[in-house]
């Protein structure tokens, strides 16, 4: 795993250098080293000398497509995983980019490591972490622990079946076999079996922890409305206070607005400082859209988003 990441990293740097030297792009968005262990940070590189800051490992969890909204007047080269690329395809369908504005450097993704799971598996503060083969080695002040990498993956990564960004302009690394580690999102399956009362209780409990920081919205590439419904004061859709009902309102609408647009990358859940489970909502919507309209986000750059189109034969057994 580690050698593969190293090879990918070298190729990303090489390609980035080439693009910047030829002035084919104005900037490169990729992942860089950060001060905290188990994490990386998005970096923005404008000169060929800077490409050595680009890295690739199992902690490159952010969805970089989010940052494209800030560079709508630039030609951008971007490092993408399968989920990032699908978000970009979905955004292109919504006419967010000019043709040929983007250059995608696609990395077949090895699935990313869930830092919170790792942090919970050890006692004490992790001061440094690195990968070796199939293991993650975490070290703190008075401990050193070797963990099996595959036991500490994000749930959204475990179920992922689109790890190779086929839409990319260039593939960095060889395509990977698309088999999910687990068949279904464990939470959605469990949740679906509960009674409506229990489901509401669970949702109520999860959303009650929300502190309205909107980190989930900011992390999501699909949340780019010029004015979000929570910020609008006329019409005043939602109260600005901490009323439980308003917290629920926010989470229902944030999720529902992703219908047919969510790539299932899980960036919202990772961004949440309160560790609220959010992907069980968006994942369900993805399944509904697949079942009702046979649509999967970001797979096909031609099919319009499901809620912007229709078939006369759509299901309507629920209508009186």
């Amino acid at each position, binding site marked *: 795993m580690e050698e593969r990441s190293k090879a990918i990293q070298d190729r990303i740097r090489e390609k980035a250098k080439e693009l910047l030297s030829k002035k084919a792009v104005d900037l490169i968005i990729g992942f860089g080293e950060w001060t905290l262990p188990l994490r990386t940070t998005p970096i923005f590189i404008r000169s060929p000398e800077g490409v050595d800051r680009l890295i690739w490992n199992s902690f490159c969890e952010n969805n970089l497509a989010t940052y494209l909204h800030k560079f709508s007047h630039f030609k951008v080269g971007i490092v993408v995983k399968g989920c990032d690329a699908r978000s970009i395809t979905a955004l292109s369908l919504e006419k967010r980019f000019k043709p040929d504005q983007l250059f995608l450097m696609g990395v077949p993704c090895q699935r990313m490591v869930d830092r919170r799971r790792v942090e919970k598996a050890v006692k004490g503060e992790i001061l440094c972490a690195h990968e070796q083969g199939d293991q993650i080695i975490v070290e703190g002040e008075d401990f050193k622990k070797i963990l099996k990498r595959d036991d500490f993956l994000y749930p959204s990564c475990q179920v992922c079946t689109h790890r190779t960004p086929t839409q990319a302009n260039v593939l960095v690394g060889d395509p990977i076999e698309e088999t999910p580690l687990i068949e279904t999102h464990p939470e959605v399956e469990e949740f*679906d079996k509960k009674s409506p009362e229990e*489901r509401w209780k669970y*949702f*109520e409990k999860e959303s009650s922890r929300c502190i309205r920081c909107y980190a989930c919205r900011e992390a999501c590439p699909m949340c780019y409305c010029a004015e979000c419904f929570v910020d609008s004061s006329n019409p005043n859709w939602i109260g600005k206070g901490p009323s439980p009902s308003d917290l*629920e309102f926010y989470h*229902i609408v944030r999720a529902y607005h992703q219908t047919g647009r969510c790539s299932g990358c899980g960036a919202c859940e990772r961004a949440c400082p309160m560790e609220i489970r959010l992907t069980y*909502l968006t994942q369900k919507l993805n399944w509904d859209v697949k079942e009702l309209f046979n649509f999967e986000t970001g797979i096909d750059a031609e099919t319009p988003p499901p*809620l912007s189109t229709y078939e006369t034969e759509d299901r309507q057994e*629920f209508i*009186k």
Partner: protein
Amino acid sequence: MEDHWEPKILAFLCNWCSYAGADLAGTSRIQYPPNIRVIRVPCSGRINPLFILKALQSGIDGVLVSGCHPGDCHYLSGNYIGRRKSATLKRFLEYLGFEEGRVQFSWVSAAEGGRFSQVVDEVTQDIKKLGPAKRFVKGSVELGVRS
């Protein structure tokens, strides 16, 4: 208190079919339950899911969305677009734990005054069975209706 409870139902009716259907029911002197409050919208495709959620949050016990039959839309495809939104929203709300039947959908044409009264009757019966809305209602925690 419970004995005297009557549900408050909000009906979003499209201007071209269902609203005219309701009008016909009125001019034909057809009786239907007085529990519905009608909001006239240009088209069933105009309905933003936020309308429905805002109504439920404000303490409405049930929502009815009604538009033209498929193929009859004044704007040709508004009700088809609305149908997709309704299908996903209904499923999502029920997945979250809203009772089945809190939000209902129907097609009623301008000539179907009798059918309109029948739909309102059915919806009112359904909502009466479900009882007053407690989940999601703003102020219900503060008032102690839910803990």
